[in-house]
């Protein structure tokens, strides 16, 4: 086996390739560290040295290559078998370092995925807790609004100019207060999928479907509409984010329950003959989307979430001067 190690690069091609390829050729022919061949040649020379020089020295036995009598500086056989202890330790340490490299690489590759999923879980938790927070704040706002409505009604009832009724009508139109009354109940759901199968995108209820249904309900004479418990106001949006549908930036869950308040008979008659309802029925028969319309004696819709004052500002507290407040209050309540 030592004979094969003539120059460390036994498979050197006979004729070099074109000059532009010399880099690649060099890479392939010198793929083994040339030092291996050099050090092997040095060891061969060292092995040959004492056997030749034995005649010169005269006092040394030619059998010096025997591992038993290691008198020379570097006996070849012993070195080949890892005779030098420090060399052996160095080799073992080097291999351990290589193994450590592999282990670290494997560990890194394995630990990277959990990091990503951990970040995802954390984000989901954050979204959930913030949503709960928003819900609580909305409840508090509704309570406060109810209290202030009551106070305002008491204050205005002494006025006697029908301001309370006027305000009530305006509030109903702007989804400012929860409403209860007879109406229509529309239910939409994705087509059922077999377990372990991914849903066909065409068999899903999209935001456009909901938009068309809602517009059809408005045009059929609905006075108030809520989707999945979220009241629609004049400025509400229905849009999709990924696979979820957001109503007023709040996710609504399947199945989509649409509550509409109004005269049930009129709305149903007008709605079922609407082209949007017809399209949904076609989708239901084609893709299996579930679509049902039912009259209801009592439908309850909550107050709209984002009833905010855009031009009016609250009166300054009584301690400050009332002079600047008159302009803002008249500007706000003029409609």
């Amino acid at each position, binding site marked *: *086996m*030592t004979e*094969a*190690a003539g120059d*460390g690069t*036994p*498979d050197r091609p006979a004729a070099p390739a074109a000059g532009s390829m010399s880099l*690649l050729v060099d*890479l*392939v022919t010198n*793929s*083994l*560290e040339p*030092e*291996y*061949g050099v*050090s*092997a040649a040095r*060891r061969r020379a060292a092995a040959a040295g004492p056997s030749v020089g034995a005649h010169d020295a005269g006092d040394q036995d030619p059998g010096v290559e025997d591992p038993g009598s290691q008198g020379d500086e570097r006996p070849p056989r012993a070195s*080949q078998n*890892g005779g030098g202890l420090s*060399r*052996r330790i*160095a*080799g*073992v*340490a*080097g*291999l*351990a*370092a*290589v*193994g*450590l*490299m*592999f*282990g*670290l*690489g*494997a*560990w*890194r590759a394995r*630990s990277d995925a959990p990091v990503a999923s951990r970040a995802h879980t954390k984000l989901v938790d954050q979204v959930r807790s913030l949503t709960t927070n928003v819900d609580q704040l909305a409840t508090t706002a509704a309570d406060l609004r109810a209290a202030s409505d009551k106070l305002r009604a008491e204050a205005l009832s002494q006025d006697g100019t029908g301001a309370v009724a006027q305000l009530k009508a305006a509030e109903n139109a702007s989804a400012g207060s929860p409403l209860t009354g007879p109406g229509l109940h529309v239910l939409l759901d994705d087509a059922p999928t077999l377990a372990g199968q991914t849903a066909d995108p065409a068999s899903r209820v999209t935001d456009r479907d909901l938009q068309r249904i809602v517009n059809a309900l408005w045009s059929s004479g609905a006075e108030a509409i809520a989707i999945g418990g979220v009241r629609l106001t004049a400025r509400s949006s229905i849009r999709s984010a990924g696979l979820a549908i957001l109503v007023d930036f709040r996710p609504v869950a399947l199945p989509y329950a649409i509550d509409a308040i109004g005269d049930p008979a009129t709305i149903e008659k007008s709605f079922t003959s609407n082209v949007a309802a017809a399209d949904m029925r076609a989708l239901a028969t084609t893709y299996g989307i579930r679509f049902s319309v039912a009259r209801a004696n009592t439908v309850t819709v909550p107050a709209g979430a984002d009833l905010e004052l855009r031009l009016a500002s609250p009166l300054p507290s009584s301690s400050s001067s009332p002079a600047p407040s008159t302009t803002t209050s008249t500007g706000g309540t003029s409609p």
Partner: protein
Amino acid sequence: MIAALALVAGVVAGVFFEPTVPLWLTPYLPIAVIAALDAIFGAVRARLDGVFDEKVFVISFASNVLIAALIVFLGDQLGVGSQLSTAVVVVFGIRIFTNAAAIRRHIFRA
């Protein structure tokens, strides 16, 4: 035999003790792993050729890892990080393939 045991011990240490790799070192780890792979294949081939030498192995492994890391570092600093890393990967990849072919020729005589 001892060499193989050392290799396995290193892998086990790397996987199970989960040593904390400093963040600034992590970009160099993949390149270092490829350099280590190259050193291993070179060592096995040298062993089969009968010219293996521990000193050459250790020095070539250490210097290859260092130079590979240096090239990646330089590429990062110059803003051409991925391209220089590609050069390292290509060179080591060719060497690994050539050495693997030589090992295969030794073992299977084909």
